[in-house]
């Protein structure tokens, strides 16, 4: 399982990566693996605002629907259509082509409080152990 160290991670398995003063957000490799085949992605319109850990979209596998939670509060400034039109992209490239939204963070301290790759690796190991 891949956990790139150029970004930070939430306990609900979303990642955030700095890009200028924006944050790019997606779901982790662990999350796409847990979900299984992704068949539906719904994202919010540009301009909508969310608090940290608020549901900003929905991702569905063959079996079930799950909420997507924004790892940092802020305004959505860009939405990626690629995973919406081709949901399987989330399984193939969760860290790259299947990024979900770009956020203008309201409070950059929220990013710093997320887990780094090492902490997230330990976290997913403990999640795995619950299986």
């Amino acid at each position, binding site marked *: 399982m891949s956990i790139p160290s150029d970004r930070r991670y939430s306990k609900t398995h979303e990642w955030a990566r700095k890009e200028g003063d924006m944050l790019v957000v997606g779901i982790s490799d662990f999350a796409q693996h847990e979900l299984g085949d992704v*068949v*539906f992605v719904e994202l919010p319109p540009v301009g909508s605002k969310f608090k940290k850990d608020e549901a900003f979209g929905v991702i569905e596998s063959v079996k079930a*629907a799950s909420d997507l939670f924004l790892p940092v509060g802020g305004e959505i400034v860009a939405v990626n259509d690629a995973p919406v039109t081709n949901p399987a992209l989330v399984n193939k490239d969760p860290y790259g082509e299947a990024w979900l939204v770009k956020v203008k963070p309201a409070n950059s301290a929220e990013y710093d409080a997320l887990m780094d790759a090492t902490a997230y690796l330990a976290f997913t190991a403990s999640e795995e152990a619950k*299986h």
Partner: protein
Amino acid sequence: MKRTPLYETHLALGARMVEFGGWEMPVQYTGILEEHHAVRSAAGLFDIDHMGQIEVQGPDALSYLQCLASNDIAKMQVSEAAYGLMCYADGTIVDDIFTYRLTGRYFIAVNASNTDKDYFWMLQHTADCNVQVTNLSDQTCMLALQGPKSEAILQTLTPAKLNDLAYHHCLEGNVADVPTLIGRTGYTGEDGFELFFPVEHARKVWDAILEAGKPFGLKPCGLGARDSLRFEAKMPLYGQEIGPDITPIEAGLGWAVALDAPGKERLIGRDALLKVKLEGAKHRLVGFEMIDRGIPRHNYEIAVGGQIVGHVTTGMYSPTLGKNIGLGYVPAQYAKRGTELEVIIRGKNLKAVVVPTPFYKREK
């Protein structure tokens, strides 16, 4: 939670395990879509040992089953198999069952989560009947081999002439030298077989089929694909399309209910079912396709003109059709093909339209 003898085998194959009907079962190995497509285009092997098996024998076995099973058991020849339901006195459903007529006995496959309930229900109704009802679930292993390549795969492991075995027929033969009841039936909408054999041979038969199937593109398949496959073929799932709050007539299973055949006078639920049949079902199970973007799911509400009128029993992305489709109950007046429905998905009324079912039917 209960485990089948193949539990370790599933783990070794990389399966993800989930709870189903009190059992810890594989939901998928490599992925539901891949497994689904394998069954539609080649073949899939399913561990369905969680399902129950109940044997009925004795001089009164036929008249006893005519009271308990909705279908006409008297019509069945030896080596025939048939779908039916057990109903309560009010016509609602105890379980759906699959009955095999063998020489001198009937062998019945029932749903995993209902095995004990069904067995007690059957025992409760043995009064005045000279029958022996035996729960064989613990000693019987059950596997399903499904898909267009099933016959070719199984033929490499059995001397029986499978080409001569018609759909909904069975034979008592050998698979990988293990005495096996081979039924030509399934729960996927494809050609295929359900196999019953002594549980101690589970690993041997599973491995032999998986190995024999390799050149044919056979894949081990989990309950995830089993659900999406049966759903496309509109085969009901207990707890979703059928259950103790619904009659077979409403569920569109009237074809499996024989009320007027000789011997059905004492069928449990007959009066209630006759009434529903005569008056017409007030609610009907319909298939629908989403027009708006969204995936219907079990228990989502269905509305017409903003008014809640029913609920979704099963809904998902159909791997074969590439569409978001569902099954659900609506009042009979909304069951007509082309009727516009709304499915309430996360608070939004999203448009859907009633379409003919089954969603998928194999070419024969």
